[in-house]
């Protein structure tokens, strides 16, 4: 048999419940089942990885056969990887306020219909709402004798409203996902908000693109944190030479007082009790007082790169673990929102997120706001739409002029390497100097 320096197996068995309501029609409401296993073997050089459905983790014979097959795969690898020692331990999973499994599908559908209906304010022509619930039972064991199991429960929804008038179509959307219980009661207010935003965007202007001062709301500032700093601090990208933050530990890359953290132990949507390699999770300060201080690592990138904290390996069920963010945020500063707005004087206030993307090697990122307002003389004036912001990682953090004191976290999903995992990100309101704003207004 080929050399086996280490192996682990991670099985995730679970259920996904989806309810989809489109313009008052219940398109689908039901539950599906999955049972995925990933077996990894570290051979004399690199990883051999097998993905299977429905593996009996308690069968020694089945496990041995899989390890042998993975070892044969590992034999074709050439890049010598080592695993750093890392602290072990599993945090307790947060208690569930209300267990979504105790609520029948009919009630979930009725509650979602209420949110969807609330979005149908005057002027809205189309509404759609989706409820998503995931119950994951995770089991892990490795060749070092570590073994754990836990259960993760996620529940949440999104709602979309589209308003149209004279051929102009605009959307408003809201979402809320949690790991601490059923999350669909008393949420009509978010439906209504999606509807109202869609309608008011019909009269919004297209902003003029260019360089200006920008105020980012906590949700968008969270996406900024995730795209502009988070990805580039991931140890796998640093190891491969694909991040502009490589080799910059100890360097000042942001303004004084700036603290940027990834913390998988927080009970936000990116919470994990233990990482996907069985390593204990802990708060990691990527940037402390403006200085790059830690990369996010798994065991392999910690051994290769150093300068950071392990416990950041995550995987979608049925996929191998890679270095990921979990709950990423900028710590509060001391500026009040009014002060930020008046200091902005003339610029733009950007609100909400339609997502973003980064090229960490080039150090360039882009993200899009749901809407915004022009700021004139320290006051918000006209509403604007379809506005995005781009920037360069190494200069952009120096451009943060003020950090607010009102941090808020927002849930979402992050894609990397074809895998999607639940995350949250957040920040207080931020004032950015010299922001590159994309918009097609004249």
């Amino acid at each position, binding site marked *: 048999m080929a050399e086996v320096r280490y192996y682990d197996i991670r099985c995730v068995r679970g259920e996904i419940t*989806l309810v989809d309501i489109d313009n008052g*029609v*219940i398109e*689908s*409401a*039901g*539950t*599906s*089942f*999955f*049972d*995925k296993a990933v077996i990894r073997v570290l051979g004399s050089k*690199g*990883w*051999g*990885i*097998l*993905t*299977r*459905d*429905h593996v009996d983790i308690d069968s020694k014979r089945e496990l041995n056969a899989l390890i042998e097959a993975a070892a044969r*795969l590992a034999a*074709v*690898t*050439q*890049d010598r990887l080592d695993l750093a020692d890392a602290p072990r331990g599993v945090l307790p999973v947060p208690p569930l306020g209300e267990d979504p499994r105790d609520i029948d599908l009919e009630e979930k*559908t009725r509650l979602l219909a209420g949110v969807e209906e609330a979005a149908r304010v005057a002027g809205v*022509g189309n509404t759609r709402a989706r409820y998503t619930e995931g119950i994951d039972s995770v089991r892990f064991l490795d060749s070092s004798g570590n073994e754990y199991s836990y259960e993760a429960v996620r529940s949440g929804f999104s709602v979309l409203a*589209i308003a149209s008038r004279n051929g102009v*179509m*605009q*959307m408003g959307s809201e979402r809320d996902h949690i790991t601490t219980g059923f999350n669909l009661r008393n949420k009509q207010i978010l439906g209504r908000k999606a509807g109202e935003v869609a309608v008011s965007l019909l009269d919004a202007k297209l902003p003029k*693109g*260019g360089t200006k001062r920008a105020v980012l709301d906590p949700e968008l500032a969270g996406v900024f944190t995730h795209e502009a700093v988070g990805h580039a601090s991931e140890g796998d*990208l640093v*190891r*491969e*030479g*694909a991040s502009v933050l490589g080799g910059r530990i100890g360097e000042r890359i942001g303004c004084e007082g700036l603290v940027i953290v990834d913390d998988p132990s927080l009970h936000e949507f990116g919470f994990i009790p233990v990482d996907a390699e069985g390593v204990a999770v802990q708060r990691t300060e990527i940037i402390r007082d403006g200085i790059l201080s830690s990369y996010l690592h798994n065991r392999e990138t910690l051994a290769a790169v150093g300068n950071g904290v392990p416990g950041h390996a995550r995987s979608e069920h049925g996929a191998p673990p890679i270095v990921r963010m979990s709950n990423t945020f900028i710590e509060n500063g001391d500026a009040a929102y009014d002060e930020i707005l008046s200091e902005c004087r003339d610029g733009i206030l950007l609100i909400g997120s*339609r*997502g973003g*993307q980064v*090229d960490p*090697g*080039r*150090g*360039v*990122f*882009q*993200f*899009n706001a749901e809407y915004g307002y022009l700021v004139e003389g320290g006051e918000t004036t006209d509403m604007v*739409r*379809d*506005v*995005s912001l781009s920037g*360069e990682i190494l200069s952009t953090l120096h451009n943060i002029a003020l950090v607010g004191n009102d941090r808020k976290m927002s849930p979402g999903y992050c894609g990397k390497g074809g895998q999607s995992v639940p995350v949250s990100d957040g920040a207080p309101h931020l004032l950015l100097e010299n922001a*590159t704003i*994309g*918009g*097609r207004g004249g």
Partner: protein
Amino acid sequence: MKGEDLIERVLREGERRADEVEVFYARGESVSTEIKKGIIGTAEESEAWSMAVRTVRDGRIGFSATSDPDRWKECLDAALASGRLATSQQWGGFPRPANLTSTASSSDGDLIVAVEDAAGMVADLLSGAAEHPVEVVGGGANLARSYLMVANTSGVLYGMDRTVAAVSLEAIREQSTGYEFDASPFRADIDARSVGEQAASLAARSLSGRDIATGRYDVVLSPVAAASILGHVLLPALSGRNVKAGRSFLADKIGEQVFDESLSVYDDPFAPGLGSTVWDAEGVPTRRLVFVEQGVLGRFAYDLKTGYRYGEGSTGSAVRSGGEPPGIGVHNLFIDGPRAKEPGDERAVWIHDVVGAHTANPFSGDFSVEISNPFWMEGGDLVEPIRTAMLSGNVFEMLAGIGGLGKDTRRVGRLTIPSIRLNNQQIIGK
């Protein structure tokens, strides 16, 4: 029991409790090799099995899926339970068996799902990349084979093989990056060495780009950039479900000149491609669908559910992804037209790719994205790199008046698309 015997069992058991039952079944194997530090760091092999069940009773459609054959009963129960909640709708039944005379090939008999072959493709990628002074920071090769089957209680039982060969490479030189990829059902289509060389060339040649001032410029979107922007805006606008729900910019425009008269958009499921098939994900025979001909909007795409609901009939456009119910999509979408006007003759900003296309507004078509590997193009040649900039515009306005199509047609996922010249576009410099 994992194959046809299980499908038969689910159909017979389900038939007793619903008017109709459908089973969609997929099994597959794949291998991939991933580059780390410029050599192979990881080798992966995957086997997957899945079954999706739909039940129909009194026009109420239920759905469930499982990746565990032992849970088929639970899956059927869940589908029936979900059907009890769904809103009842007009329904004319699952398709009956058809005499499928067309052919479509998305399977390569010579493709072997072997890790040694994938490793060989990585070696080719790397030898191509070695032509330029760059570091390889990622990429790999993937070979996959799957078997798909759809069966229903009206007697349909179709099966099909699919294969995929795919490669990608990511290179960097200082702070200049280059990414290239290719995927095809046919192993022989993939020139891994050339993909590696192209990625490395992009990284090497994009170094030391000059700033560009904010203003209006003629631009040329490469097939990759064009596919990225159009994929997020044009595809959803062609879906009959979005049209009927009032979510498509193109709704109510049938028969109108919506795009430049040199543009045609059609789905050809019989052309060789990643989505080639003679039956769709619901067992409906596929057909060639012309959505836009010489700029005039002709039709939209429908699946059974939306087709029955609005009296339009399915266009054989059902597709599936993951464990979700079937939805409306395209098989092999072509953006096509005469290449009379050369896109590169006059000076223009050539754009290889964009960052953040998924943030475009799919309803209005407005977008503003960061651009990747932009160059000044003169007489069809890339003459000088541009450092960085954003491109803002509106997809529907762009397509209404294009400056020409290039001769560099290329397959990007399920789209086959040439480069597109667009005049007078908004570029935001830094």
